[in-house]
């Protein structure tokens, strides 16, 4: 009996191409190059533009000529933002705020990832901690403020504590979920190669949960950025939250609105950064 030896069976992409011959022209484009992706980007940009127009209509076109709300119009806020960004103050406040976010997230990762690994690995620990975490998670981080100041003193430390406290939950929960979703085959592989516990953790478990950790991190960034501003309104003399109150006290309303705009812009960029990081880390997994 003679055997024909096909060099290899088909890859998934080839099978898809075979199933839909009319679409099988040339190599597949990366997702961001496809028509659908462009359309979504255009729609998103249109939505942002609509928001800007609404803002402008509400504070400028439709506002009464001597209305107080005119102080918050984009026609003054946007030029003011450019002036502020080239001045000495705002960049410093931005850097202070970003540093707090980074330290808070770093602490949350440091505590949250090992905790999540442990909870994901031991079902009993999960059962024991789950209600307690749900309880702690629902306490607004800001309500810890007086206690945090009494314990950690005035300055950055209580802010780090509150940010880390706010950020740790999505990281713990997502890391634990990542551990539960690890493929048993990967762990069998590690034991069949006589991997030590440490090697299994470092080469299989950590890379295996990375995607989930980054999802948790992205949620944490969203929470931290929202909690940051009110945190900075209490007992510190730098940061975007402080600067908001400062502009109010100086009656510099266009600066206030410019800072609000800046907060939104930075949050948007942080989230985009987190998403890019996630895509980068999981790019090889997608078929």
């Amino acid at each position, binding site marked *: 009996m003679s055997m024909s030896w096909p060099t290899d*069976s088909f890859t998934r992409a080839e099978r898809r191409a075979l199933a839909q011959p009319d679409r099988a022209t040339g190599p597949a484009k990366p997702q961001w190059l496809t028509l659908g992706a462009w359309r979504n980007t255009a729609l998103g940009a249109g939505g942002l533009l609509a928001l800007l127009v609404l803002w402008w209509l509400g504070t400028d076109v439709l506002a009464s000529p001597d209305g107080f709300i005119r102080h918050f119009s984009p026609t003054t806020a946007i030029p003011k933002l450019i002036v502020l960004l080239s001045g000495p103050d705002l960049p410093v406040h931005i850097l202070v705020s970003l540093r707090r976010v980074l330290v808070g997230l770093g602490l949350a990762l440091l505590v949250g990832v090992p905790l999540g690994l442990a909870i994901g690995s031991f079902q009993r620990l999960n059962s024991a901690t789950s209600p307690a975490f749900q309880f702690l998670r629902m306490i607004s981080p800001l309500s810890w403020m007086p206690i945090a100041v009494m314990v950690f003193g005035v300055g950055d430390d209580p802010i780090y504590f509150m940010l880390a406290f706010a950020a740790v939950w999505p990281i713990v929960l997502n890391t634990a979920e990542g551990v539960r979703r690890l493929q048993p085959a990967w762990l069998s592989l590690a034991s069949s190669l006589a991997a030590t516990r440490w090697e299994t953790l470092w080469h299989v478990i950590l890379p295996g949960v990375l995607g989930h950790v980054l999802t948790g991190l992205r949620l944490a960034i969203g929470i931290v950025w929202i909690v940051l501003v009110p945190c900075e309104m209490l007992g510190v003399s730098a940061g975007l939250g402080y600067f908001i109150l400062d502009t109010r006290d100086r009656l510099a309303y266009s600066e206030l609105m410019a800072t609000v705009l800046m907060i939104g812009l930075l949050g948007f960029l942080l989230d985009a950064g987190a998403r890019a990081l996630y895509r980068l880390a999981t790019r090889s997994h997608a078929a």
Partner: protein
Amino acid sequence: MTQLAFHTSRHEALALETPVLQARDVALRYPGQSRATIEGFDFALAPGETVSLLGSSGVGKSSLLRVLAGLQSPTSGTVTMNGAPLDGVHPRVAVAFQDPSLLPWLTLEKNVAFGLDFKHQPKQSRTESEARVEMAIREVGLTQSRRKFPAELSGGMAQRTALARCLARKPEILLLDEPFGALDEVTRTEMQHLLLKVVRDFRTAAILITHDIDEALLVSDRILLLGGAPASVIGEWRIDLPKPREDFIAELGAIRVDILSTLRDTAPRRAA
């Protein structure tokens, strides 16, 4: 115990050599279970020999393989490799499962190299392990795809990669747990031929777990039929025919009939 013809001098020669792997009176009973999974399993694997453990699903084949691989200690009895008791996973025993178990964040090449630098593996230089990886990938014919990620590989290519990962260890014994079970017929035949080539090129002994009688007939020097509960060997056949064996359908057919009738004869005993 059923014994069939095809005894030859070659097999008698094989039997005289020191076995690479030997199991003596192995029993396995999982805690909390009233009945043992495996009982009274005696087995010796000669160097370079390919043995199939054939049995229906759920008979305990995979548990047995885990014991032979050192992944699971037997409840009683001993497993020795080259005369020394097998204490955990031996670096020169390579295991492949039905799931190719490729890590999706590593390229094909890195997947093949995976674990070569683990603490319990023999120490070797970077160039040495790179050479081994390259050789293993060439052996399974995937040199062109070595920078691809698992998501870009077909099922057959993934299983070849898993086989290459075994080969990079220069194994003395290959343990294969239904490695081709999830593949289509054509890819499966390719993989069976590849296995024959690998066993020949690497002079490795192999144990293949399968529930496919034809697969066992095509690749093995010896077939052990497992049956009963607890499982034990209910039949043994030596096949001394040159490989590949597609030209010996008549001879294989006779053994096939014999295996099937042994299975049928033991069925009532299993039910009792």
